[in-house]
């Protein structure tokens, strides 16, 4: 490898007709980094991962993954990476062990290596006792763990995970998180994960790129990204009769860093939210604002998203829920 970059993406774009699903995106991922792509469904995460993993040809731009250009040497790229797609892709008609073994053979692994790796990985994901059961009998969480284990059988340099915990219950989600953390600790591996769960990106990733409408909005470590937002707490208020006068008054308070309004709701970026909530409410009362509800929370990546896009990931999801399956990639023929 020429440098210590695992992934280098330059101006990559994917268009469907005139719509750009991924629009001129550039970034790089260091070797050994846990890199997260955070954004609502339909933001272009799956399209980007499919381009980086050779499943889709970019309309323009380049991507160097592991060793080679994804469009020029896709076969070499595929040898170096492991990919867990968003949809469950293990064979239901095969057992967990057979799924692992056949996958290992796709990579040309010899019998001894396969047996060792399969046994080790199934043990790591806690599926040894179910190894010889048909995958059709597995729960969603078990299937997901098997699929992560399966793509590690050839010891890839980079692991891609497209929304690995989508559709999993909170308990299974934590099992997957723990497993991924363990994996990073045990192996010198680069992980590229896409997710629309803020807490997932926050808990796991060294670096996060926030993506919306096909473009990277902001990129940095979760701590750095949160540091960009003024204050350290956010007080969200629902106010009856919200006016410019009230907003101006709030902006004038010494502990308030920034005020953002939307309809009747208002987000106030403050220091020490718990301490400053009573004086804030007093000030509102004096200026004639009727407070319907008030909540305080610590800043999260969700707030980073809102700060940069003016909307929340959850709202975006509600709008784009119809793209949930297959992340909006059109498929031809009789669907």
């Amino acid at each position: 490898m020429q440098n210590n970059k695992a992934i280098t993406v330059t101006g990559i774009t994917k268009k469907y007709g005139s719509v750009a699903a991924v629009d001129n995106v550039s970034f790089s991922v260091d070797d050994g980094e846990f890199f997260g792509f955070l954004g609502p469904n339909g933001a272009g995460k799956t399209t980007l991962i499919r381009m980086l993993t050779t499943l889709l040809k970019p309309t323009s731009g380049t991507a160097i993954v592991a060793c080679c250009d994804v469009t020029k040497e896709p076969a070499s790229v595929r040898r170096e990476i492991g990919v867990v797609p968003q949809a469950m892709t293990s064979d239901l008609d095969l057992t967990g062990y057979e799924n692992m073994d056949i996958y290992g053979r796709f990579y040309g692994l010899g019998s001894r290596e396969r047996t060792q790796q399969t046994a080790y990985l199934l043990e790591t994901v806690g599926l040894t006792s179910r190894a010889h059961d048909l995958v059709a009998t597995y729960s969603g969480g078990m299937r997901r763990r098997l699929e992560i284990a399966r793509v590690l059988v050839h010891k890839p340099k980079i692991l891609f995970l497209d929304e690995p915990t989508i559709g999993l219950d909170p308990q299974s989600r934590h099992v997957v998180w723990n497993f991924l953390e363990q994996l990073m600790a045990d192996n010198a591996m680069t992980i590229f994960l896409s997710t629309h769960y803020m807490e997932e990106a926050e808990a796991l990733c060294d670096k996060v790129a926030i993506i919306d409408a096909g473009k990277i909005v902001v990129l940095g470590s979760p701590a750095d990204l949160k540091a960009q937002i003024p204050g350290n707490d956010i007080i969200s208020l629902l106010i009856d009769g919200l006016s410019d006068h009230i907003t101006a008054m709030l902006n004038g308070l010494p502990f308030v860093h920034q005020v953002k309004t939307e309809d009747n709701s208002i987000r106030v970026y403050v220091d020490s939210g718990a301490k400053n909530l009573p004086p804030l409410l007093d000030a509102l009362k004096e200026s004639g604002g009727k407070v319907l509800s008030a909540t305080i929370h610590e800043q999260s990546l969700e707030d980073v998203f809102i700060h940069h896009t003016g909307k929340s990931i959850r709202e975006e999801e509600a709008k784009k829920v119809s793209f949930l399956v297959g992340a909006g990639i059109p498929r031809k023929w009789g669907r």
Partner: protein
Amino acid sequence: MAATRNPDPRILRAIGVFMIRLLAVIERDLKKFKRNPLVIAMSVVMPIVYLIILGNSFQGKLVSLPVALVNQDSGPYAKRVAENLRAVEAGPGTFSLLAMKDQSQALEGIKKGIYKAAVIIPPDFSKKVVLKSGPEIGLFLDNTDGISSENIRNIVNAALRSMKTEYVPIREKYEDVQLREIDLYAKVDYYQSLVPGVVIMAIFLGTLTSGAFNLVMDRFLGIDESYLLTPLSKSHIVGGLVISGLSITTIIAVFIFTVSMFITGIPFSKGIEQCASIFIIIVLTTLCLLSLMFVILGRVDHPRIVGILSGFLNVILFFPSGAVYPIASFPGWLRNFAKINPEAYAVDALKAILFKNANLTYIAGDIVFLLVFTGVMMTLAILTFKRTI
């Protein structure tokens, strides 16, 4: 009372709710149908294809059956027989005559399936007509194709009859010109003649439900991504699925073949060699159809499309294959189609092996076609297969 005459509002409401639900089911179904243009197109096209193909594959007038004419007699009567046969060729056109000198070449041609029959006029024919000493004409028939041979027999007989009335003086007691018919092979009844077709049908169904179909199912279930993401090449995927389909379909076809041999009572007259030849044709036909399916289904991602195509492909491949009715009865365009229809070559080869005891050299033409077709289709399949999503 007014209240008793009015229907119970609860019943009205129940009917209303029932109708809302029923209409919702109907609308959902119709919308899905409407949004699958290929399904609509095929539902309209299929019956018409059936009409055109089936209508032309059965009961058509036989034309241009290739018949070898070996005239070893230079006398006037032999000439007249030949003229009468030429008149049939020019008129109804049931057969097309190919004149040749060598009798054994004509018989060999029948064995190889080049000719359906050979008319042999012996050197002393005219002399025997004059001397009224029982003149004879030989008619060698490929009786494995019962429908064609029956037609040729009738027409040759008719041609000779017309000669008798024309040239034999009225008062003279004439010696009949005898047509000595020779069936070249053991009699094949219609039931037995269907066996090659049944085997080809088994191969067709086998190749449709293995090989490329598994790819369609993987796409439908969305699990194709898992192997598209590995270093597997196009040739690995296409080749691997074709070989697995080959093993499944060959087993099915051999089983069907054996069972239908017992049911119809065809003897294994030549033992191992015959069985080996049949096995080779089954394997080649399977490869041929599997690679064809790969070209056609290579990009399909819904099993519904396979269902529709299966009916269509079966009609356009099976009925014009000569498995049920001779190709010579088809109109020109359908006969031309049969020339590129692998099932027609497979049926021809199986008929030759089963009913004419032909060995592989006699069906070399069929084998070469099946091999070339497989090669072309496999190349196309690999070229057109999309390694991306």
